[in-house]
């Protein structure tokens, strides 16, 4: 089973085409294993991306280096997934 320990979901809201491009360039880097929950659409629209733990540091550094602000929408994906499983088991009981 795939686990998501340390994965975070970041919410980025590009404010310009330049910032949007920074995000889209990251989208093409397959080695980062990014999972775009909300794809880049245009300036002003939120982009949600699940970032695996190994890529987190470099991903955030790249955004910060390019002045692209972001917020952490989900601090620890695995914690929410575990929550869900607990709920599922509880309701089954």
């Amino acid at each position, binding site marked *: *089973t*795939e686990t*998501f320990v340390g994965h975070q*979901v970041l919410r980025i809201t590009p404010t310009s085409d330049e910032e949007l491009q920074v995000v889209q360039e990251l989208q093409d880097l*397959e080695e980062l294993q990014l*999972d*775009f*929950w*909300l*794809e*880049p*659409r*245009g300036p002003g629209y939120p982009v*949600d991306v*699940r970032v695996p733990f190994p890529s987190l540091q470099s991903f955030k550094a790249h955004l910060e280096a390019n002045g692209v602000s972001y917020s952490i*929408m*989900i601090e620890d*994906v695995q914690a*929410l*997934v575990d*929550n*869900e499983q607990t*709920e*599922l088991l*509880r*309701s*089954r009981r």
Partner: protein
Amino acid sequence: LPLSTNTFDYATYHTLDEIYSFMDLLVAENPNLVSKVEIGRSTENRPLYVLKFSKGGTNRPAVWIDTGIHSREWVTQASGVWFAKKIVVDHENDEGLASILDQMDIFLEIVTNPDGFAFTQTQNRMWRKTRSKQSGSVCIGVDPNRNWDAGFGGPGASRNPCSETYHGPYANSEPEVKAIVDFVKSHGNIKAFISIHSYSQLLLYPYGYTRTPVPDQKELHQISEKAVTALSSLYGTNYKYGSIFTTIYQASGSTVDWTYNQGIKYSFTFELRDTGRYGFLLPAKQIVPTAQETWLALKTIMLYTRDHLY
């Protein structure tokens, strides 16, 4: 398993088997209204079940609703279960719904991508696509919302089998998609088609593969406005609406572009709530409020369809 659909827990997520058992219970409890149709088999040979709600007649005008085509969007399958029960509970005492069923049938496919859904419950909660194998690639699966024969393979889908938006080797390559295509073509009298996704609180209509507005754009926009107003009236959930292309991005090979091009004028896609915080991991306690508010929008679309049959 619950003894009846009255004791079924709608405020929690369920496994594929529990949802299939729920369907059988609902049919057994309401043989004069609900029947279960198998429209095909998935890649891994799971049955593709559609619930039919009908007061009789043959090949009557119909509304199609599907949930769960992207398997990780769990709030959609859970909402589909709630819709099924709602139709049964309200089919006589809700005047609007009763009048819809007086004239039309409702088809509801709750688990449109069972292989992917089972995979999210056993191997990878974040799985979105089907589970078909791709020759020449180690990657698995096709995005079932890019596999339809409407602008297929154009911009707004990926040709890379490892991408989440991989359109597949050819249109309708996925049995989950082909089954619906065959059903829609053989039925021939579907007047509204609603495909439900999550998340980002949008009500969308064609086209996604081109910026060109559909001929019925004005009418679809008006219907969307009514439906979103009804939805937001319950909990104030804020929705946007418009064509796929102008509201989110270019997406080729999508479900409702194909259904619209088949002549099903009232073709819509929902992106249900996440309240801006949980994405695909919406807590189970939000299932029922999400289903309740969405139901108001669905009823608005179905009532409009009933009054504007074509």
